[in-house]
């Protein structure tokens, strides 16, 4: 009962935040609404006992990815007029995608009510059950190849991003950090003893 109440209020917040993402005029607000949406879904995952995934969602998406998103969105100057120009041109495509999604969602409800065997809720886990251990055990044994492949693709993306920014611009002034660190006092300052001067 209490869990149901939690679920429905969270669902309301999540829906509101998602609508906010697409209706805000200011891209910064869209990004902030997205943060709220991520956070709310993390809390919903807690309700289905997926505490590891919930915390990781907050850690990765809210704590790192969205910070970088905000970083970029705050820096660039987005001209909304320019963006709105293509609206009529792309409206049919958008409408088609929306239709497909709507049909898919409605099918889910129809399947539930059409008498097909639907999985019931799994029984709650006993106390002391560790979500993290369970996930780790599956991830590193059964799905180890998929896991390694995913990490390899991510590594590739990191290296590609670095390579893209590694262009040499002529005339750029950069510090040689190793030389800066290696500097000793004798290279820069000289202690001199002077006679006192009078005038």
């Amino acid at each position, binding site marked *: 009962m209490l869990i149901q109440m939690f679920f429905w209020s969270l669902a309301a917040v999540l829906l509101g935040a998602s609508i906010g993402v697409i209706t805000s005029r200011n891209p910064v607000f869209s990004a902030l609404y997205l943060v709220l949406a991520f956070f709310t879904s993390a809390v919903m995952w807690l309700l289905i006992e997926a*505490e590891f995934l919930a915390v990781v969602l907050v850690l990765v998406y809210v704590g790192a990815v969205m910070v970088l998103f905000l970083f970029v969105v705050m820096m660039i100057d987005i001209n909304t007029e320019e963006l709105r120009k293509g609206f009529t041109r792309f409206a049919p495509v958008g409408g088609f995608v929306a239709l497909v999604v709507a049909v898919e969602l409605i099918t889910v409800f129809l399947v539930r009510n059409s008498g097909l065997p639907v999985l019931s809720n799994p029984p709650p886990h006993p106390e002391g059950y560790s979500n993290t251990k369970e996930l780790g055990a599956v991830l590193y044994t059964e799905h180890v190849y998929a896991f390694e492949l995913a990490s390899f693709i991510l590594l590739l993306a990191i290296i590609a991003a670095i390579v893209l920014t590694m262009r040499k611009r002529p005339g750029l002034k950069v510090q040689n950090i190793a030389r800066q660190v290696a500097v000793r006092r004798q290279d820069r300052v000289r202690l001199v003893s002077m006679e006192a001067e009078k005038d």
Partner: protein
Amino acid sequence: MTGIINSLWAIIEPYWNWLPTLIQDVIIVVLQIAPLLVVIILCVAYLTFWERKIIGWMQNRIGPNRVGPWGLFQPFADTIKLILKEVIVPRDANRFLFLIAPLLSISPALAAWAVVPLFPDFAIADVDAGLLYVLALTSLGVYGVIIAGWATNSKYAFLGAMRSAAQIVSYEIAMGFALVGVLMAGGSLNLGEIVAAQAGPDNSWFLLWLFPLFIVYFISGVAETNRAPFDVAEGESEIVAGFHVEYSGVAFAIFFLAEYANMILIAALTSVMFCGGWDSPFSGIAALEGSMLAAGGLHWLCIKVAFFLFCFLWLRATFPRYRYDQIMRLGWKVFIPVTIVWIFIEGGLALIGVGPWST
């Protein structure tokens, strides 16, 4: 004393039993949270005082000594002054975000305390993924800074926010890797179990075995809290006061509170994860058996936290501010490789059965 408590309880008990269990649980948790909150806020107050005293002594000054004996009431004078001042919202600022930003920076700093094991077998919320929870919450603190910088609609504030965001995201990675080492050694994500793995007479604090990770974690913690020498987000000599340049009164006080609460939190986490938390360093010595010194408890955690807080102040009084590119270099090119190498060494040691994690 116990007689009074018993007679009081006799009066309360019928009403207590009448309450539903859910409300009883809520009341118990609130009764645990409230004293902790009060203690943290008092610690913040006296940390500011202690900081000014220590920096004063290090610079051959006296420090605050006007209000009360030895200046001990100075924090209250400061607080009253800040509360009585007007909160000014700049004309072109986004009012809602401007006012909510300080709250966004204080709440993660306080919420993370829920999983910190305060004394043997006790934390307010003894959750399984405690370490991840702490990491997630400390990474949320950056939103307060970014939103404050953006909502202020001022170039200085915005520059401060951008610097802080880049810095926190960079150091988060090194911090996370250092914690991977801790969870490998402790064999658990639960902070209570991590402390329990270090406790005991053989004194296997992770400090010894994970020394590079400890150093990386603590320095990253200093960088995450935007403290000197990593305080480019404030940089009062370059960008006035950074993200909180337009804040005044209570709103500024909350930012201040958040910064110091974060310092206390990082100090507590460093002691929990590397220095045995509530464990006593003298627990194996026969001559001290049965005394306060040998018993683990809250007092040892407090001593360790106080030591790390002193290190924060010591660093601030000693080092000049880092240049921005050097901060990035230290985070990405020094700390991350060090942590990765040490994780591999730790794995190798575990494989050949050396170290406390082998048992």
